[in-house]
């Protein structure tokens, strides 16, 4: 029973890890930074409305560049 429970918890954890982090940990990190920044900008709310989408776009570019096809041997 305990073994079954442990296996279930492990599978659940693995599912969420693959789902949220997987092979793009930079996007999970980006989301964490965006959430933290949203709270930090509490005193300057309008800036958040401009900064948050720009930050998401910047992280998307970085992640896309990381996933690009490279010439063989590079």
């Amino acid at each position, binding site marked *: 029973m305990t073994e079954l429970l442990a296996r279930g918890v492990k599978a659940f954890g693995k599912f969420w890890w693959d*789902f*949220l982090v*997987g092979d*793009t940990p930079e*996007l*999970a990190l*980006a*989301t*964490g930074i*965006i*959430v933290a920044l*949203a*709270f930090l*900008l*509490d005193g300057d*709310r*309008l800036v*958040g*409305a401009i900064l*948050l*989408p720009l930050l*998401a*776009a910047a*992280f*998307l*570019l970085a*992640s*896309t*560049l990381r*996933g*690009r*096809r*490279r*010439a*063989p041997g*590079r």
Partner: protein
Amino acid sequence: MHSTSSTIVLVLAVFGASTVEMVEALTIVVAAGVSRGWRSALEGAAAAAVVLGVLVVVVGVPLVRYIPLDALRVVVGALLLVLGLSWLRKAILRASGHKDLHDEDKIYADTVAELSETGTEGAAPGRARVHSGRDGVAFVVAFKGVFLEGTEVVLIVISLGAAQHRLGLAALAAAAALLLVAVVGLVVSRQLSEVPENAIKTAVGIMLTSFGIFWVGEGAGVNWPGSDLAIPVLVGFFIAVTVGYTAFMRTKLPAPSPEESPAT
């Protein structure tokens, strides 16, 4: 009161995400049906759909009822943002040629070949044995296909539905997509390889990212100009970003190696 713009984006996002995932699931169900027998494949698919529906009710309803809205929006926003950014990344890489397009025909052929090798004793050479009664393999393969592809849909339905307190509408949009794909799949009786999957995935990625940013900001106290009207503005911004990045990434394709170049 819910604004029309956020309702439209909610319905489109859920419907699009469900369509993409259900086309992928249909490929597996059709492969199981063709190679092992339709009865068990359809039963497996229906059982998975029921389990997914129960998940929406069991997880979604308590979320809507008992979690404070601002906290829910930050968590849901973060979830949608991770999901949206990773869908967009993949869509941009595919559209710009850095990643191969999702090939339903290949997935279908591989699944049929794999299933045909399982338990073909007594069948004619090169042909799978199609069962007239119940077949455990077809049931399990169809169940797993629908359940795994549907899990992402359930997360999107719960996230978008719970954050806007419109779980019923989100579930309805997903059910409509499921029905549409199932009916079209049954009519043409094959996998839907002509569906412009990457285009739908791009559109859904844009909507999930826009909603994600919006809910994270809203939950954290960001003052969006125009309130809910900021959602279509964010959608417009991410459309521009996606188009721009796709064009930019095309310039980053490696030059073909000499042996790949056509002889002149």
